[in-house]
């Protein structure tokens, strides 16, 4: 496949030519020429690329939801969802249901912050999708500090949770929001430290460079196995899945910080959770599992998505096997277990770099 | 862990318990009958707390199984029925206390056994028997503010209260 931009620019040029032709037919030649000029074409190209990336990311995310439902069903000796072919339509049915539900805003909430929290959350998550390259050609934004930016945006979510929990004016939601903040300080440091090893070995924050480095040398899971494990644990905590879903621990806090959300707001929150899961899996694949590299009989994008599904399968497996931890335990886990491991991993990376093994 | 079967070594048989109670309380408490693992007794209202103190301290009765009430409008009395179990002796003592129906008051045994707390509250809730010295004698199963005592026999069922 050609470069995503080139490909879509071709479409955009054709589309704008069509519109320009329409205006030509209306004898408005100046307007037609303006449509065919590079500026509007570039604008439409960027817009279309964003749309395509969003749609693909969205589809992958809801397929992850489907995978979770089916695999979790098999883990628990049941069938999982049954709507449509293999249960694939369940997510669309859920989305439709959430969409047509009545919008209920409780009286005592802080309306602006209450509405802002899902928007921040879904906005930040959608932005993340744009930062993930799926292959050399499928790159929306090839930034040199890509990895840093991804994690900067990742950390916006706890803020949204805190805001939403506080604005909902409910004791459960406040506790959920506070837990999100407490959880943040426990996993964020080991998470970033586990990435530092990769960055030291590769010498770049650019996600494309990291993959190219792995194509040239070896998948970084081999020298950085400890880092990979730390990353997996911390990433599960980052996207708040069982066993680390403290902010929405439904046994004690009803639905945690999202107790007061309903309808499409709740749907968006749930969707953003899976988009973040998709992004976190992508980072794991990009950093440790060779990104889109693989035998070239199929497209690299497919390899990439297949790897994401495999990583997500491990997450589902963990979710099926384990129970939820408490705040105290995640703090102690983060600081006394993950942190030293991440530091050891960092030392290994520095050692490898110093002695020039890789 | 060593398993014990039936009566623990050093435990008292129901006959022993009955004898000790008779010895300690020549009046006020009557032991009506004895069966395997069971002792049946009747106690006066005033003697109940002493009896309970005695069986708790000297006879190892550690557990209140049940406190219940019975209403006898025909005989113009109410009863509270206590089932108190001893883990060490594997025996249960049933104590029946008669109360006058117009002023059903009896000493609470909650200070001795915390397990009697909610049973006594429930008996108060259902029969209006007042347990003197109970830490929190309030409605428990019926909503706060109920004015009737539904388990009394003169309570007319089938109407909303």
């Amino acid at each position, binding site marked *: 496949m050609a470069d995503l931009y080139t490909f879509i620019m071709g479409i955009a040029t054709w589309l704008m030519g069509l519109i320009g032709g329409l205006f030509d037919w209306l004898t408005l030649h100046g307007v037609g020429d303006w449509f065919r000029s590079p500026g509007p074409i570039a604008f439409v190209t960027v817009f279309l690329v964003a749309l395509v990336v969003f749609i693909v990311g969205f589809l992958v995310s809801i397929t992850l939801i489907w995978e979770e439902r089916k695999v979790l*069903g098999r883990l628990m000796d049941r069938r999982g969802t049954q709507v449509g072919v293999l249960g694939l339509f369940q997510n669309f049915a859920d989305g439709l249901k959430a969409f047509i539900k009545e919008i209920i805003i409780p009286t005592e909430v802080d309306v602006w912050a209450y509405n802002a929290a899902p928007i921040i959350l879904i906005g930040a998550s959608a932005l993340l999708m744009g930062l993930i390259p799926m292959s050399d050609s499928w790159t929306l934004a090839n930034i040199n500090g890509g990895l840093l930016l991804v994690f900067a945006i990742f950390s916006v979510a706890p803020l949204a949770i805190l805001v939403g929990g506080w604005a909902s004016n409910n004791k459960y939601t406040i506790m959920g929001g506070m837990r999100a903040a407490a959880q943040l300080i426990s996993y964020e440091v080991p998470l970033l430290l586990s990435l530092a090893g990769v960055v030291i070995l590769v010498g770049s924050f650019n996600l494309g460079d990291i993959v190219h480095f792995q194509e040239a040398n070896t998948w970084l899971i081999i020298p950085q196995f400890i880092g990979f494990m730390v990353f997996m644990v911390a990433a599960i905590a980052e996207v708040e899945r069982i066993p680390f879903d403290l902010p929405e621990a439904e046994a004690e806090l009803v639905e945690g910080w999202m107790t007061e959300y309903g309808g499409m707001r709740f749907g968006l929150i749930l969707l953003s959770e899976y988009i973040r899961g998709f992004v976190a899996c992508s980072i794991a694949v990009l950093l440790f599992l060779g990104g889109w590299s693989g035998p070239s009989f199929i497209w690299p994008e497919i390899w990439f998505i297949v790897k994401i599904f495999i990583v997500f399968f491990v997450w589902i497996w*963990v979710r099926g096997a384990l129970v939820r931890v408490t705040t105290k335990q995640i703090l102690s886990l983060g600081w006394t277990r993950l942190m030293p491991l991440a530091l050891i991993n960092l030392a290994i990376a520095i050692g490898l770099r110093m002695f020039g093994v890789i | 862990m060593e398993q014990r079967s039936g009566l623990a070594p050093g435990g008292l048989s129901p006959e022993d318990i009955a004898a000790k109670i008779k010895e300690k309380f020549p009046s006020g408490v009557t032991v009506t009958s004895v069966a395997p693992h069971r002792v049946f007794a009747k106690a006066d209202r005033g003697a109940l707390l002493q009896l309970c103190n005695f069986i708790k301290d000297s006879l190892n009765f550690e557990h209140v199984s049940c406190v219940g009430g019975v209403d006898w409008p025909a005989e113009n009395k109410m009863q509270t029925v206590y089932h108190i179990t001893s883990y060490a002796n594997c025996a249960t003592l049933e104590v029946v206390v008669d109360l006058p129906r117009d002023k059903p008051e009896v000493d609470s045994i909650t200070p001795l056994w915390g397990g009697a707390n909610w049973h006594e509250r429930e008996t108060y809730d259902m029969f209006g028997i007042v347990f003197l010295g109970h830490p929190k004698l309030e409605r428990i199963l019926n909503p706060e503010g109920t004015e009737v005592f539904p388990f009394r026999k003169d309570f007319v069922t089938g109407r909303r209260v």
Partner: protein
Amino acid sequence: MAEPKKSRKSPKPKLIMARPMAVVGRETFRTSRGLNRPVTVLYPWERLVIPDGYRGRPALVMDKCIGCHICEKICPTGCIELIEVELPNKGKVERPQVNLGRCMICGYCAEYCPKNAMIMAPEYELAAYSRQDLIYDPFKLQYEDRPGLAVDIFEIKPSEIGMGSKGKSIKTAPPGMRDVPALEDKKCISCSKCEKVCPAEAVTMIEVGKNEKGRPIKRPKFDEALCVACEQCVDNCPKDALSMKEVK
């Protein structure tokens, strides 16, 4: 007691979470292979096999019913009511009507029915759109009388304990297994009410003499083989002259 058995040891965690994940993974593998399907049943399309003696809704075999009111009396929720229906060859008779909205499917009506007219039908899809639809009149209540649906009860009398008896069916009514009404002669006023209400035709009024006015003095005689112990005569006796005599 024999030598004390050792209490079981709680297995200690090894490798943090390896064993739980292994167990769950094994289940996944087991349920994902083609022939081993998950245990859940896709209900409207797949159904479980119902065993013999399954207690579904109560049902009526119209031919066997004698209208004895036993089911009405024993029903703990009071959901059975005997209503008058017109039957082709019997005229106006009383037959049970069941309010399934109240029924708690305890099976007492089938268990106590002396003629096996009430049975437990293996039907479990009983939802209806209105409460009125849940009231099953005697005709709606009917169900095909298959062997195995009737509840047969085997009891022994207290006096037979230890005599090697395995119990007799109370449905086929061997004489002496059921309570029978007993008459208190002084109270009887010869009104023949008991004969009229008896559903099993077990009461016959026998003339025992004449009173001073020349009217016949009649006393009921109970046929133990026919009596179903329904207490209709006891309940309907205007002078409370009848009571049930318990078999011991």
